[in-house]
């Protein structure tokens, strides 16, 4: 079977929904500019691209109308490049990568743009016209459970107190702020220009985050709960993209390879504790790669919520010193459909930067799912 590699990773700055700099920029425009930059920088021949696979959690409004195809046009790609929009909520753009890898191994193409987008400003979480199945809602209300409640459920189940959650947030902001100050995001961020608006830097990071600043926040989802806005990932706008090709293609065209995809997995779990989804997904992916968690050098675990991340760390047995080296979603932001490609691209880039061998990117998904990707150095 053909080897599949990640041959480039780019993203927009991530900025807070409604008040950040991307709030006034259409998400398809942001995604198109990120992809344009990815194509230019990697040097991939545009006409060789089989498909643009766009992950998006709420593909409607400005993200609707099979936005992937529209982004093909907006990004100035040849009309021969196809476009498909995929939805696995927060796992959408990691799913894009899995689909490309599958297609390559099936011999259904050599080069794919795997992207993700979400403007949580311009398309509200839940969408414009949520129409839940009334019978399912009655029988199994948790099928539609709010994400914050799932975080509270895990905090209770794993007895994760507020202080421990806040520690995750403090660390996340500390690492992200340090990485930002050290210019470590410069390689990955594409400046977005739209009319008079220019967006260059991440906007969610709060370098002054401390236990004390977080102590003042009220519980966000449950009056007697422990999860606050400060220990949750913020509503975020942004877009990401990675270039996925066969290893042969990358070598033949002199593309710079960041990492090879070793194994992938998705798994379902109880929706009311959806945050635990990375546990079964990671286990499957590691098994498929014939690895143990101890073998992994670099881990990108999406911090949807601090309580959720801690529950996963506990069950998987993650060494936190290997995790989210440049900060996680609590600090950087979590533009739902765009996050999967970010953490997979980031894990690949970190393998290179840190000179390590194996990486894991994994995240939880609303409705009760997990998704994981294991990467190895090329």
């Amino acid at each position, binding site marked *: 079977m053909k080897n599949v590699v990640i041959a480039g990773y780019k993203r927009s700055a991530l900025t807070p929904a409604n008040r950040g700099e991307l709030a006034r920029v259409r998400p398809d425009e942001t995604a198109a500019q990120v992809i344009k930059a990815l194509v230019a920088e990697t040097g991939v021949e545009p006409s060789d691209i089989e498909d643009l696979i766009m992950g998006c959690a709420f593909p409607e409004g400005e993200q609707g109308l099979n936005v992937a195809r529209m982004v093909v046009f907006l990004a100035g790609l040849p009309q021969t490049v196809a476009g498909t929009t995929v939805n696995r909520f927060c796992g959408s753009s990691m799913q894009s990568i899995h689909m490309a890898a599958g297609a390559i191994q099936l011999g259904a193409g050599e080069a794919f743009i795997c992207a993700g987008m979400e403007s949580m400003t311009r398309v509200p979480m839940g969408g*414009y*016209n*949520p*129409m*839940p*199945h*009334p*019978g399912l*809602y*009655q029988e199994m*209300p948790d099928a*539609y459970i*709010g994400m*914050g*409640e799932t975080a*509270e459920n895990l905090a209770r189940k794993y007895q994760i107190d507020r202080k421990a959650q806040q520690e995750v947030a403090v660390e996340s902001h500390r690492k992200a702020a340090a990485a930002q100050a050290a210019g470590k995001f410069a390689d990955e961020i594409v400046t977005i220009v739209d009319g008079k608006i220019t967006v260059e830097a991440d906007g969610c990071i709060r370098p002054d985050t401390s236990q004390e600043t977080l102590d003042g926040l009220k*519980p*966000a*989802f*449950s*009056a*007697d*709960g422990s999860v606050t806005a400060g220990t949750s990932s913020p509503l975020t706008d942004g877009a990401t993209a990675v270039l996925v090709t066969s290893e042969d293609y990358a070598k033949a065209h002199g593309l710079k390879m960041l990492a090879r995809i070793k194994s992938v997995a998705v798994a379902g779990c109880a929706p009311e504790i959806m945050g635990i989804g990375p546990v079964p997904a990671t286990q499957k992916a590691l098994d498929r790669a014939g690895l143990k968690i101890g073998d992994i050098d670099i881990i990108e675990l999406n911090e949807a919520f601090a309580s959720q991340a801690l529950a996963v760390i506990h069950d998987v047995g993650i060494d936190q010193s290997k995790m989210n080296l440049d900060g996680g979603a609590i600090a950087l932001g979590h533009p739902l459909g765009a996050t999967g490609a970010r953490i997979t691209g980031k894990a690949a880039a970190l393998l290179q930067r840190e000179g390590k061998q194996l990486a894991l990117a994994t995240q939880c998904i609303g409705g009760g799912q997990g998704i994981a990707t294991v990467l190895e150095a090329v």
Partner: protein
Amino acid sequence: MTEIKKVAVLGAGVMGSGIAAHVANAGVPVVLLDIVPKGANDRSALAKGAIDRMLKQKPAPFMHKKNARLITPGNLEDDLSALADCDWICEAVLEDPTVKHDLYKRVEDVRKDGSIVTSNTSTIPLEKLVEGQSDRFAKDFAITHFFNPPRYMRLLEVVGGKATRPGALDALRQFGEVDLGKQVVVCHDTPGFIGNRIGIYWSFVAMSQAIELGLTVEEADSIVGRPLGIPKTGIFALGDLTGIDLAPHINASMLRLLPETDAFALEFNPKDTLGTLIGGMIEKGYTGRKGKGGFYRRTNEAGEKVREALDLTTGEYRPEQKANLGSARAGRKGLRAVVEHEDKGGQYAWAVLSKVLSYTAEHAADISDSIRDVDAAMRTGYAWKWGPFEQLDMLGPKWFAEKLKADGLPVPALIEKVGDGNFYREENGVAEYFTYDGSYAAVPVPDDAWQLADRKRGAEPIMRNGSASLWDVGDGVACLELHSKMNAIDNDTVAMFAKAAQIDKQGYKALIIGGDYDNFSVGANVGVVLFAANAAMWPVVDQGIGALQDALMKLKYAKFPVVAAVAGMALGGGCEIALHADVVQAHAESYMGLVEVGVGVIPAGGGCKELVTRWMTEKKRPGGPLPALSQAFETIATAKVGTSAAESRELKFLRRSDGITMNRDRLLADAKARALSMVDGYATPEPVVLNLPGATARAAMGLAVTSLVAQGKATAYDAVVAGELGQVLSGGDTDIVDEVTEKQLLSLERQAFLTLVKKTPTLDRIEHMLETGRPLRN
């Protein structure tokens, strides 16, 4: 006459910016300029800062936040050219004649011919303001004196000078009354005009007499408050509210202008007990609510909040002592009963009224054209329930004169002149007032600003019962007047609705619903509901709802136009009446809302039906039924209230086709004109059918409510009420491909109401509301 279509306000202080905001409330663009602050980066920082501040201020200067966009901020150095196309330039800068004179010269260079310039001065005579200015300026110049805050205080004093052209004054009156909704009172160019001339003397007398007669601040406020028809802040709490530090400035400027023979000049002494007390308070920072406290203060000693009051004799604070004067309680029996009461409160009331009413009668002819203007100024500028001459009539001018004489006090000539008569009277069905030349003249009733009382005078109603009446208001228009307590809806009201829906059979061609009320209607009489519920008389409740629904549907589908004239509160069932009219003509300062959830029920007089219809048929809304449904759901489930007509329009209690009247006095005339305009070619509305998502929408609403309950933002019982509301708004047992009729929605409302009214927590909510006037959160 100049038509005012664009305005400039010079000076972005409290008054200037407040005037600009209110001009914006009238939908008129306004330029707001102030000086360039020293060393500022933004040369227009003062005007911009004022707008930002007003957007956060409570009570809100803007009727809707979006009105702020009608104000263009700028500065007096770079943007004076913006005055060139303004029809009215209102100056509200420092009360310094030199500053004003310089500014006027610069304004004169840029303003267009025929534009009007006014000053919002409260202390500088017009004669002085036009000194040294050109003839052109003097012709176009007047004083427009607003009261603070300009949105809420209805009085606008207008003063013309000898040279002022009549067209300018007419334009100001027209704009002030129609666009700004003010009570425009033309005043003579005398110190303090009308409001402050009397008001400042009244303040001084009320404070100094309290000290003189040994009343506590609580006792004084309990007398010169409600019993005398004055807001409950009385005098001392009012001082705290307006700022005690203002008093010396105001008094000094009045004294500078008044002749030495004026009673205020004679009696006022800054070195007496009151003057010393106030001086000391200001020195220590006790300037009122904005400072450390005033005549009252709240302290937090020993962790406990204590309300204290100033002892007027020692100047020290002590715990508040609730006043307990028989004279205050006598207020229920009328003004004279207060004054005639033997306790010190009665003596105090007499001391204040004898001085203030005499002072007013003595100076009225100098300061105004008529006693009506004096009364109007005090009612709308100081929020007195009765003007000074109305008070004299309540006491009896003759009785008042005798009592003055008995006390050895002089009787003002005007009071002598009115003799045995009253200042106001009704002769042969005509309201008249006493003129300064000693005769009676008819109170004018303008065609565009009549009150229902004017139509009722000397007339009999077409029909009448205990809660409502039908009146002929001319031109084939009938007026349905509610007159139960707070205009609450009861069986009689509903019966009259049903009759009014057939008024065409008696030759009428249009109906307006309105009157001279403070509140349009506060909704159904929940006391009756509670009584029926306690006796488990469910069929009675059911029939009551059915009758209201039928009556409102009959009004909606009547063969003639129905216009609801909404002012004050239109809540619950009151709002539902308005929702069923062809058109609502709403006073700009009205309150509308479907607040039924506060008493644990849902709107069942067609309110759910109308609101969901308005949202679902809104052409500009995003696709899919849920956005529309969730708007209606949130509005009703959280009992949202529009606190102005502009806000109610956003909440869809008012449609774009509904009218807004800025001046309460013009509401009925506007409503009638609107009704008449619809008579020709009137067609009853087409019945609406809706496609509603049924159970799917209930699941979506349920999700939202569950998370609100988890967050502690809604109670478990709120969720029960919201569940019933969801049942109605979702269309009940239906599917998106099926059509739901109005009748079906009404039936759902009725079922939901009956389900809820049988539940104990709902009855607890009703009981609590009846007892405390506040909603119970259970």
